[in-house]
Structure formats: structure tokens, C-alpha cells
């Protein structure tokens, strides 16, 4: 167990290192830099001297390894630098954006997990017309571009019916009811695809498990369908599904960009877009670092639940 933990830690560190270095290199390779972006924004034109001066001010004139070392050094001292544009600390900026993003992502996971798994089970059990229907609905869910769906939902539920707010995010601590109401439309938007994805995968996993010999034997021993399906089959089908939920979480992490944009949710996706478009290196690094940490932690959680669910892996 200890060895496993050390291995996980080491591979996580390697991943973090690789991602942050790659990010540095890519940002450096990108045409244009923060100095230009700032100068363009502030005065609409600049002399080469102004540009050089701005680069010095931002520390962009140093070599890449040196810049990276500085960044790393700061990180080890608990700081991720400051936003090049408004001087806000990156840690603080990201901190304020984790809540909204996580709310949307976790709510989507819960909704799509519950609905998707339920649909998947039902369609695996019934097959036939219903199975086909779930197939088609699933595909439909995956096929509808989510920005399109978002616009339609806003028009319908916010503008026409005034049932939910069209935009914005209320922190849970401020007003739990508003928090929930604000999440409904964004989560619906994201869940359409996610439910479809999970339903399909659960259906496949479930069909796979249900066709296994032990299921027949469980029935032969007289167990109720309920126990066979909900206890035994589901427990076994959960193994691949948990992996998929992990994957879904990782993809939702970036996939919230459009939804955050349309629903004006101050999340990480938005921050990622903004930062990368303005070459705001500390912020980009911060986002990349945070995303990678989330991915690493997600993988850990998936791995642990995998072990809990699958005695074979647990033993070895």
C-alpha cells in the first residue's frame, strides 16, 4: 500500500512537471506575448523600447529555464505569481473560480451518473425497442451541440417561463436555493451529452455483465431479479462505469468553457480561455497546474474505488 502511494505520488509529480514545462514551452512558442497584449490594450501602439521595457517589467526577457525556475521556486513557497494584467494573486483568482466550476461539474456528474446509470440499466434489461430508443436518445444527446442546447434552454426556461435565472452564479454559502436554481440550466446543458455517454456505457457494461455465466447462476440459485441486477450485476458493471465517470470529470473540466460563457459562470474554463488568449503566463500555468492536480486526484479516486470494487485488483 505504501509502495503504491509512493508510486502514485511520483507519477503525479512527473505528470505535473511535464504539463507545466510543456505549458511554458508552448506559451513561449506562441506568437505574441503578454507584453504586447498589455501594450496593445493600453495604448494601441508602442515603440520597440516600450516593448522591451514591458518585457523586462514582466520578467519575460529572461531565458525560459530561468523563468520556469522562478515559477517553481515561487510555487514551492506557496505562490503561483500574479495576474500580469491586474496584479491579482493567481492563487486567489483561481480559488474564487474553483467553487463555481466544481459546482457545475459535480452536479453534472451526479445528475448524469444517476440518470445515465438508471437509463443504462433499464435499456440493458429491456433491450429491444427501448434499448434502441435509449441508443437514439443517447446519440441525440451527444449530437446536439451544447451551445445550441444552452441557447434554447435559456430562451425557454429563463426568458419565456422565468423559471430559472438566465445567467450568473450564487455561491452556496450566500444562498443555497439560488445556488441550486442557478445550476439547473447549465447542468441540464452539460448533462444531455453526459447522460447519453454514461447511459450508453452503462448499458454496454451491464449487458456485458448480464451475459456472464455468474448472472445465470445467480438466477439458477433462485435470487430475485432485483438482487441479481441491482446488487450483483450493478456492482460488477460499476467497475468500468467508475472509470468512465473519472474520464467524464476530466473532460467536463475543460468542457465547461462554453457553458460558463453563455451562463456567465465565473469558473476555471473561462479563466483558461481568457488567460491563454492574453498570454498571461502565470495564470495559464496556474490553470494548467490546477487542472492537472484535479486530474491526478481524480485518477487516484478512480483507482481507489476501482480497488474497492474489484477484489482481484485489491488483492494483487
Amino acid at each position: 500500500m505504501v509502495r503504491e502511494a509512493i508510486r502514485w505520488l511520483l507519477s503525479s509529480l512527473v505528470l505535473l512537471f511535464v504539463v507545466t514545462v510543456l505549458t511554458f514551452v508552448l506559451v513561449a512558442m506562441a506568437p505574441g506575448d503578454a507584453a504586447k497584449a498589455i501594450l496593445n490594450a493600453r495604448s494601441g501602439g508602442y515603440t520597440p523600447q516600450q516593448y522591451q521595457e514591458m518585457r523586462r517589467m514582466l520578467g519575460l526577457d529572461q531565458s525560459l529555464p530561468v523563468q520556469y525556475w522562478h515559477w517553481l521556486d515561487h510555487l514551492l513557497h506557496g505562490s503561483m505569481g500574479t495576474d500580469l494584467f491586474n496584479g491579482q494573486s493567481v492563487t486567489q483568482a483561481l480559488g474564487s473560480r474553483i467553487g463555481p466550476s466544481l459546482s457545475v461539474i459535480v452536479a453534472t456528474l451526479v445528475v448524469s451518473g444517476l440518470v445515465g446509470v438508471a437509463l443504462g440499466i433499464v435499456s440493458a434489461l429491456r433491450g429491444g425497442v427501448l434499448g434502441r430508443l435509449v441508443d437514439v436518445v443517447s446519440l441525440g444527446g451527444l449530437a446536439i451541440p451544447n451551445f445550441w442546447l444552452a441557447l434554447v434552454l435559456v430562451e425557454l426556461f429563463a426568458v419565456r417561463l422565468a423559471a430559472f435565472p438566465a445567467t450568473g452564479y450564487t455561491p452556496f454559502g450566500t444562498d443555497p436555493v439560488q445556488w441550486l436554481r442557478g445550476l439547473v440550466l447549465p447542468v441540464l446543458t452539460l448533462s444531455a451529452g453526459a447522460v447519453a455517454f454514461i447511459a450508453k456505457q452503462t448499458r454496454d457494461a451491464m449487458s456485458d455483465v448480464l451475459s456472464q455465466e455468474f448472472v445465470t447462476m445467480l438466477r439458477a440459485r433462485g435470487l430475485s431479479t432485483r438482487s441479481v441486477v441491482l446488487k450483483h450485476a450493478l456492482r460488477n458493471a460499476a467497475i468500468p462505469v467508475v472509470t468512465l465517470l473519472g474520464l467524464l470529470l476530466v473532460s467536463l473540466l475543460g468542457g465547461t468553457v462554453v457553458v460558463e460563457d453563455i451562463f456567465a459562470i465565473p469558473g476555471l474554463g473561462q479563466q483558461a480561455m481568457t488567460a491563454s488568449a492574453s498570454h498571461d503566463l502565470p495564470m495559464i500555468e496556474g490553470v494548467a497546474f490546477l487542472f492537472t492536480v484535479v486530474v491526478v486526484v481524480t485518477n487516484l479516486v478512480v483507482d481507489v474505488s476501482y480497488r474497492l470494487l474489484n477484489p482481484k485488483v485489491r488483492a494483487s
Partner: protein
Amino acid sequence: MTAIITSPETVQETGPAAPAPGRPWRGLLRQPLGLLSAGYLLLLVVVAAAGTLLTPRDPEADDLAHTLSGPSGAHWLGTDRLGRDVFSRLMVGSRPTLLGVAEAVLVFVVLGVALGMVAGFAGGRTDRLIARLGDLVLAVPGIIALLMVLAVFPDNNAAAMIAFGLISSPSLLRVVRAVTMAVRNELYVKAARLSGLSTPAILRRHILPRLAGPVIVQVSLFAASAVLAETALSFLGLATPETQGPSWGNMVGEAASVISVDPWLLVPTGGMLVVTVLALGLLGDTVHDLTVGRARGSAVRPVRRPRPAVRTAVAVAAADVAAAVADGAPTEQGAAAPLLSVRGLTIAFPSPEGEVTVVRGVGFDVARGECVGIVGESGCGKTVTARSLVGLLPGGGRVVAGSVAFDGRDLADPAGREVARLRGSRIGLISQEPMSGLDPSFRVGSQLAEVVRRHHRLTRRQSRARALELLALVELPDPASVARSHPHELSGGMAQRVSIALALAGEPDLLIADEPTTALDVTVQAEILNLLRSLRVRTGMAVVLVTHDWGVLADLCERAVVMYAGEVVEQAPVSDLYHAPRHPYTLALLAANPHLAAVGQELPAIPGTVPPPSAWPAGCHFQPRCGYATEECGAGAIPLVTVAGGHQARCIHVDRLEAAR
């Protein structure tokens, strides 16, 4: 973009179980939706390739007097902000979109297949290295990677799509690796390697063809997500600007920008996307169904009651068959009503060509406490027959005619309620593969206790105690430790003992043992047989034993039913069968039995193989392999006739057989 889900993995942990049927394409033709999708996609490619050749109007010609006109005779899908024809622009716009998708798919396939095959084939360190690399790429948040790539190559659609293909490829890699590994380990491939076939040749000849199905599935799903990614990027203003000509993405973007003025524009543009993604998805699904196969008819699904009309038709047809085979009922039997009585049992399975009958007109009886064996080669319908007795036919199979009476109740009732009540409590089942018959996720003790509680009103504690008793009953040396184990920690013999314990938990009157020793070592086989024999003595239960081993049969059973190609060809007390077989097939089986062959004598195998149900010959099923066959044998159905007391055979040349002896 829907969370760009970069891994449309359908084949997760397991590779495809069965080899793909030869040509999925022919199957495709039978799937209207799949065919429609393929046709649509083909049309799309033609349209994209033709460019302006096919467009009804010049896609670039503007008409400032008629902007955002909505659909009309002149403009089927309306006009855009500059009065350009939306229909023509959608046609032309398919090119950059498809091109982007093609780029992504190319990278996806090349990387996924090449690395996956290498990893799966080479195994060992190479495999681990590639797997690590794949995990690493999968761990990179996709959107960040795309943003970075677009920052380095601004407005460059190709770069973005290539990157998208790259970061998605590990999912294909995994699938290809799994399939390659599975194929590599198959006997014929091993043989090919041993015979010196070079690695590239093996990859080309044996592995690539098997990859086609799963790869096509993955590619169509990936292509669908690539279409969405391409358009989402354009929509976000990150790639394919409108001034470079129309693309689906920038058209949706444009439509979205005028949504408050003219929502119509979202319909054709968004619709095009939805239809295309749907087509790709359906194509993938269809190919998936045709190649990998979907365990559609799962064991748990309640048997659906066939619609009356159909049922009647089938029943009538079955009745004809039953009549033709003279009911197959044993003519004489002890005075006491038998425990189990099977009559005219006919079982069919669904197939793409319609239902196929695999067991026809089977009948036999089992008295209380009696042990009856069912023998025959594999593929003769023994297992199907045994499973039908507990109402657990796999793969959508169903009893289309006949009856199964157990202690006076009809178990062949299509709703299956009766048999469901008896399963476990009065009829037990043990299977061929003891290990795969146990739920891998639960401890033995808990599985056993659950079954005990199901059949007896006991507290949790009592049922745990009873579970330990049962484990002791099947002569497991350390019941407590076995109860704490997970199935994978057991040996095959232990697992089979656990299975038996599970079957005994409800104290059944009838135990159906489906080749209970086949998968075990010879010494373990003997132990299990001893156990079964002693349990019979102790519990007095009847046993139906499916086997292809004469030794086992002789050891345990009083009577035997010989099955060939879905039919009972002979049944008799075991000793009669041994000493005076009345059917050429039984004779051949006995001759091929290792237990009976004299030492040093060459084992005569029965030439030929059991024909699949679709290829059953007219008349006697055994005719192509029968040394006694004459023309008459193929003339019509052969009846089962009583040749001696309690001895029946399905052969018109019984007398010749006797003469030969």
C-alpha cells in the same frame, strides 16, 4: 463543446469475446438505419468533394436586398446575413469540416492502431511504456491542450484537429491493444508464429482483419466527436474564420450571432451537425452490433410473451415437428409419476436469419432420486436442454413447443413464473465453469448466505452459520477461510465445491449438473464425482448430469439420454447402452471413448463434425457421418422407436446394427 469527450470507449476492459463474423458489410445491408447512415455519409463526402459543382447557387454571391430571408422557393434553407444561399453554403461548408475531421481521424487511427498493435503484440516492457504514455496523454486536459495548440498556431484548424486526434488516440490504442492481445493468444495465431510466419505477416493476416470491426466503431464515434469539436472551435471563434469560406462551424457561429433577430438560421446549421453526428453514431453502433456483438438477450431479461399470432404459428409448426418425431416420449416408465417429465421440447434461438431451432422434440423422464445422464458431442444441444429445465436459456433462446413437467407443474410456461419459484429451492444447477459461475465481487460466505436466506427464513447470523455448514457438507477442509475468500482466490476444485454448496443451499429435489468436471484436473474430477455420489446418497435428490464422458456417466448415472444435433437419438439404462447400443452414433461415441479403448489401440475418432442447426440434413441428422446410412435415411424424419424395455433409438437400421454386432 460537450466536454470534449475524447474517449468514446465502448470496448472497455474486455476485448471482443467472439471472433467477428466474416463480413460485417453484408450485415450492414440488413440494418436500415446503419445503411441509411452510411449512404448519407457517402453522399456527404461526394458533396464535399464536388464543391461548387453541385450547389444550386453560388455560395459566395450575396444579395443585400434579401438577407436572413428564411426558407423560400429560391433559397430552400433561407439566406444568411449577406443574403447568401444557406443551402449552397452548407454544401460547400462540409468540405473544411470533413477535412478537419479527416485529419483528426487519420492521426487518431494511425497512432491508435500502430501503437496499440505494437503494445498488444510485443507485450512486456514495450507494452507498459506505451500504456504509460497513453495514460499521460489522457491525463492532459483536452481543452487546455487545444487552447495551447491554437495559441501556437492561431486560426489553424488543421493543427487543432491533428492535436485533437493525438490527444484522443489513447482510447483507440487501448481497444486495439486489447484485441491484439486476445488474438495473439489464440491458438491459431500461436501456431502461425511457431510455424515461422513473420511478425508483419501475422499482423497483416491475422490481427488487422480482426481489428477492422472495433476500429470502425471507435472511428465513427471519434469522428462524431471530431465534428462537434471542429464546429465548437469555429463557434468559439478559434478556427476557420468565415472569410476563408463557409464551414459548418462558422455557419453555426454566424447563426448564433443573429439568434435574437433570426432564430431560424440555427435550425439548418445546427440540424446539419446533429444529423451528421447521428449518422456517424448510428454507423458505429451498427458496426458494433455486427462485429463485437452485443449480448442483447441477457440471461436476466424476462422472457417476453410472444404475440399470440406468432406463438400459435410457431406452436403449430412445432406440433408438426413433434408429430413427425413421434413425440419422443418414453413409452414405459415406473408406475409412480416421475419427478421430471420432458415432452416434445423444442427450443429456438434468434439469429439474423430469423429463429433457428436448435433442439427438437426432446423427451425423457427423471424419477425421484434417479440420476439421468445426457451425453453427446459438443453442439448437440445438451447444455441448452439442461438450461431450459430451469428456464435460463441464454441469448434470447426460448421454448417454442413441448412441455417440462416438474412434480406436476409446467415449467415451460413462457412467462417463466413457475420455474422462477422452483429455481434454487427445488431445482439446483451447477455449471461447467465453476469459477465464472461465482460473482467475482462478493465473498463466498456472503454469496452463500444470501442464497440461504433466500430459501429459508433465517436471521443473518443463522444463515452465515448455515453457509459454513454447507461448505462443510461439500467437504471443504476449512469452511471459515473459504467463506472469507473471494472467488478468484479459490482453486477450480474448491470453486466447484462452492458451486455445489450454493446449489444445495435450497435443498433441491433435482440437481442439474452441466458438465461439472470438464474444466477440472483429473484428480479433482474424481473428488467432485465422489462428492456428488455421496451427496446423492445423503440427500436423495435426483440428478440430471450433462456430460460427454462415458466414465462419468457410468460412475453416477442409472440411465442415459444420447443427443445428436438437437435430437434424442437413443435412451436406455446405462448398462444397456454400454453393452448394446442401438444407434450408430452411440456406437461411434463408445468407440471413441478413451476409457473403453484398449491400451495401445488407436483411438477411432468419429469422422466429420456435428452440423450446426442451420445445416441439419433432411431425414436423419447423423446421416452424413453414419457408416450405415442408406438413401432412405434422408427421406424423412426418423421416429424414435422402442427397441427393448426402456430402450429407444432413432434409427431405421437398428436391425443392421444388431446384425453387425
